[in-house]
């Protein structure tokens, strides 16, 4: 499901092939490594979705069903991905369960040697389908929630969806698969974190991901009604720290902060063309979810070239790889190997130049633009910021 692929945008950038250094004794040798290969393949199987979330990460221009890749092409892509070094496949969308061949796709990815994640709303799921997916080799299911309370969740998703998600949680207890609950966080649900944690604790989840909305696509269009206040954010940080300690060794609690409030940008996608590759429903290979907003980038299609060729040679992947494209202050910054200049799409969206320093960075000359947005929200009255918004709901593809 598309909403939680937003979690991906930053959460997956922590995708690592290493253990915390502190825990490795000399006896255990060195477990850290950096691989020059793509590590994860984000497979956007379809743009069709029963939800209409106001922060959907899908592009505003959605692909129709007739353009979707066939089972055979996806199966070839999974093999090529494994050969190129990819470890994990993230099935997302839209709603990946909208594909009638979803069980065959899970089986194909698993037989290719990949670890298979399914990111879903759980809406088109019944217990027989769940059993078939697990039998086909599904490793990990990420169930998205739009809130802890039914009325908030239904408002944000534009659908009556919450009760079905609770049913899915119940079925999951009876199947051997890893379970993550994904909550996309924003002004209207950031005060419900404790209720969300209680939901996770009462379930079989071993991981909970709170990802603040990142502002691209539909979320960018609804930003003024989604950005949390600084007070809300500070309270959430205190709570998360406390809960991470309390739940240690039971539930991993991950928190992705809204980068508009950050001092430094996120290392978006773990660096452009460094770890991740996204395939759209029609087969275009992108370095990140939102890359299509950048003018002048031409994307290659998996129908025409192998995944490895695209990874190594595609002009779109080369464009912001490494450091040659960087301008000041990134070019000479000590942090350039940590955050890679931040997010190219955000630079484009906020300052009109995809090669600029991500303007959320406190070192960016354009940071005042971001501060002005935050000031607008933090000086408004409570009645103003919690007024019923004129939501712009995500549409469905034609």
């Amino acid at each position: 499901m598309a909403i939680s692929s937003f979690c991906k945008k930053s959460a997956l950038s922590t995708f690592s092939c290493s253990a915390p250094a502190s825990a490795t004794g000399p006896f255990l040798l060195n477990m850290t490594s950096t691989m020059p290969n793509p590590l994860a393949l984000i497979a956007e199987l379809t743009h069709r979705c029963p939800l209409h979330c106001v922060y959907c990460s899908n592009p505003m221009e959605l692909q129709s069903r007739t353009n979707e890749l066939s089972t055979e092409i996806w199966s070839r892509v999974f093999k090529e991905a494994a050969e190129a070094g990819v470890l994990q496949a993230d099935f997302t969308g839209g709603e990946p369960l909208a594909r009638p061949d979803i069980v065959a796709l899970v089986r194909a990815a698993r037989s290719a040697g990949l670890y298979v994640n399914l990111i879903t709303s759980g809406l088109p799921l019944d217990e027989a389908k769940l059993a078939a997916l697990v039998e086909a080799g599904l490793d990990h299911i990420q169930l998205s929630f739009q809130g802890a309370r039914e009325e908030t969740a239904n408002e944000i998703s534009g659908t009556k969806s919450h009760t079905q998600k609770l049913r899915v949680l119940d079925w999951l207890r009876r199947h051997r698969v890893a379970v993550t609950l994904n909550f996309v966080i924003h002004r209207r649900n950031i005060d419900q974190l404790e209720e969300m944690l209680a939901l996770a604790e009462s379930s079989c989840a071993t991981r909970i991901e709170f990802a603040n909305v990142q502002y691209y696509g539909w979320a960018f269009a609804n930003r003024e009604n989604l950005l949390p206040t600084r007070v809300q954010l500070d309270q959430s940080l205190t709570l998360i720290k406390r809960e991470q300690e309390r739940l240690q060794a039971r539930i991993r609690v991950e928190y992705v902060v809204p980068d508009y409030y950050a001092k430094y940008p996120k290392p978006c996608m773990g660096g452009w063309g460094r770890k991740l590759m996204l395939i759209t429903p029609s087969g275009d290979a992108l370095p990140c979810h939102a890359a299509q907003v950048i003018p002048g980038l031409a994307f290659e299609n998996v129908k025409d070239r192998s995944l490895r060729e695209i990874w190594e040679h595609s002009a779109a992947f080369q464009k912001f790889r490494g450091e040659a494209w960087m301008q000041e202050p990134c070019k000479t910054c000590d942090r350039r190997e940590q955050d890679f200049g931040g997010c190219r799409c955000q630079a484009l969206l906020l300052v009109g130049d995809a090669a600029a320093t991500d303007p959320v960075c406190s070192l960016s000359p354009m940071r005042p633009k971001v501060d002005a947005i935050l000031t607008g929200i933090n000086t408004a009255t409570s009645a103003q910021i919690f007024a019923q918004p004129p939501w712009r709901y995500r549409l469905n593809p034609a």
Partner: protein
Amino acid sequence: MTPELHSFPRLAPGCRLSEKAREPRTLLMPERALRLNGPSLEIVERCDGKHTVQQIIVDLQKIYSKAEPHKVEQDILGYLILLQKERALDFQL
């Protein structure tokens, strides 16, 4: 927090070793992969719910007979706790 020596460590749901044919071997888990080699691979291969913590220690002390046995034990316990914190491991009694 020390694992009970007579408990049986077992990889948690959704955590598994990558296939033998794929090098380097890794422990695959939600959103993560730990690269394994030498002792860490020997340990994880035994986290199958059939070996006790004690048996894993004895096995590895044999395999790494040149290492100081107490040190081997401490490293194994530390590594098992790390895996549990990562939510990759459960201890069954």
